């Protein structure tokens, strides 16, 4: 029986090139490319690394998003994943993290049933650059009843392929954690350097299966997905006020400048 790895991936707008129109205060989306979310690329790379190292490993990528997200999945296949699944449906649009995890979990269960397998290892990126919540990975794990380790910066699977030892990043160091498979791991960029697509990869991607499923296909309970089912709602959204001119420090010497600056920083609790 093959060792099955699932990677959760999202297509996101490249927020590094998003700009605000200073006059209207709205996002300028023209020419903003959609990309495979950064941390998810690390998640996929780790799955592919395990596939390189061990025999008989199958890597499946799952995503939720609009039909265009197939481009991102094709990219994942070209990098070396074996098959891809996209859950795409109006009914799941506008989902918050809780509702998104419901849709993904239904999709994952459907995939396991349809393909007659169970996933031994589930990877996700720590967070997506458009929302930065870092919540979907743990919420998927909760609903699949899997143990999780987040912020994974190093990962090794034992020879029996039933236990992983990971280094989990902390602000002030790291911890070493052992966990039995199946489990969920969320990747950070320190984990690895994602590979590029190869020419052969791009050609072979066309022949690999990509399943595009609707909400009905995955038999998700419609009262658990979409905008209506999401516990959190956007109340208002806005652009931060353009930064106003602050204080020019008046002083007769450099020393006085520095002292006044430090007092100011202290009084504003920034240091």
């Amino acid at each position, binding site marked *: 029986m093959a060792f099955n790895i699932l990677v959760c991936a999202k297509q996101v707008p490249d*927020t*590094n090139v*998003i*700009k605000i129109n200073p006059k209207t205060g*709205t*996002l300028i989306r023209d020419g903003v490319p959609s990309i495979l979310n950064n941390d998810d690329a690390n998640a996929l790379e780790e799955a592919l690394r395990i596939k390189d190292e061990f025999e008989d490993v199958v890597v499946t990528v799952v995503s939720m998003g609009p039909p265009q997200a197939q481009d991102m999945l094709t990219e994942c296949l070209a990098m070396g994943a074996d098959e891809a699944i996209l859950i795409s449906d*109006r009914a799941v*649009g*506008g989902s*918050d993290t*809780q509702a998104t995890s419901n849709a993904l979990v239904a999709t994952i269960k459907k995939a396991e049933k349809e393909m007659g397998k169970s996933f031994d290892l589930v990877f996700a990126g720590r967070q997506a*650059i458009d929302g*930065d919540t*870092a919540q979907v990975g*743990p*919420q998927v794990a*909760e609903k699949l009843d899997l*143990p*999780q380790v*987040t912020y994974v910066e190093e990962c090794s699977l034992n020879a029996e392929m039933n236990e992983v030892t990971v280094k989990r990043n*902390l*602000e*002030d*160091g*790291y*911890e*070493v*954690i*052992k*966990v*039995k498979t199946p489990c969920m791991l969320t990747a950070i960029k320190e984990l690895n350097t994602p590979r590029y697509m190869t020419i052969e990869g791009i050609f072979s991607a066309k022949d690999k299966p990509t399943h595009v499923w609707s909400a009905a296909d995955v038999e998700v309970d419609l009262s658990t997905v979409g*905008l*209506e089912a999401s*516990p*959190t*709602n*956007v*109340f*208002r*959204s*806005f*652009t*931060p*006020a353009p*930064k106003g*001119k*602050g*204080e*020019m*420090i008046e002083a007769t010497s*450099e*020393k006085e400048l*520095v*002292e006044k*600056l*430090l007092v100011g*920083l*202290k009084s504003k*609790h*920034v240091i």
Partner: protein
Amino acid sequence: MAIKVINDKCKGCTICVKACPFDAIEMKGKIAEIGAACTACGVCVAKCPFEAIEKVEDENDNGVDLSEYKDIWVFAEQRQGKLMGVALELIGEGYRLAKEISDDTKVCAVIVGDNVAHLADECYAYGAERVILIEDPLLKNFTTDGYTKVLTDAINEFKPEIVLYGATHIGRDLAPRVAARCNTGLTADCTRLDVRVSSYIDFANKNTTLDTSTLDPNDPDTGIKQTRPAFGGNLMATIICPRFRPQMSTVRPGVMQKREPVEGAKGELVEYKPTIAAADIRTEVVEIVKSAKELVSLTDAEIIVSGGRGLGNEEGFALLKDFADHIGGVLGASRAAVDAGWIDHSHQVGQTGTTVKPRIYFACGISGAIQHLAGMQGSDMIVAINKDADAPIFEVADYGLVGDLYKIIPLLKEEWDNADALFDASAK
């Protein structure tokens, strides 16, 4: 909640299509249509000149009795028997919010661990009115499974209205799991919290471009309004959780204010006996290693010291590095400095470099070209040092220092650790 286009009023002007941050509106013939990507954020409602788009609230029909839930909880994160700073910040913020809700709403610190009872006094000193202590040898170190179980059990028993967590690597691991198990909402990485609509309006008027004329300052609603950056800080969103309880947020360390500690303050201690067995915990913590902080990337940096053409030469960066190391910052640069070959492109900040939003950004010898500003304007605090009093960088600086950076930077490094003393002296 849903966004609806009133077809009779829509003039087909496409303003909403361009305004939508989520690319969720399309023109169907001459009429706008809201698509699946809609998050009901309401930007289009505000932008539509014809009042042709409305937000429809729906009834609460999920069987959750909101009135059963009371008090504000703070997950008082501790590591190796020491409270994290963010826990004390959140107790301060929780106190402020509790009093805005009602006089008898209490802020409670929840301490989970083993032999951590001694932390209760510190929580009281910083404003906690109640401490819920959850101790067990199995809870000595943080584990997702262990902490999720005991915290969820306690939440189900006591029913807090709001639960706040620090957005640390532990808080961001625990909170989503607890929220999923309690079947409620969670908002990540908040930088501002409000319960009263009037406070929210004050905040929005001072700090944002939001049109607050549609908000009623006398609105009795005290549901939490959680403001957070999205799209890499290009957009701010305020999130609510109107139909489920508890309302949960993770909050970035360093943004909320601690209260002035009151030595010897006392509160009510509630010891909650958890039901937890070794088999509940499916991960094994083999070791915890503390390491000296490694070089962090620009995007995650708390402090950035950036240099421009004004440095004059490569050695200027050695001076900045020396200062940056002293204050725990990382080096940034303008394109002119990168083009001059003084520093690697990976340090470049701006339109064609990295977008950064540290807590403090020092711009040293940088003129403030628009392409540079595009990448650092989102910083919480900008300090500019430039010889030229008319340099455009001063237009965005919170503090402007006119002078020679070669004189100022060494002095700044020297005086940095004296800031407390200088501040105390200035207060007298």
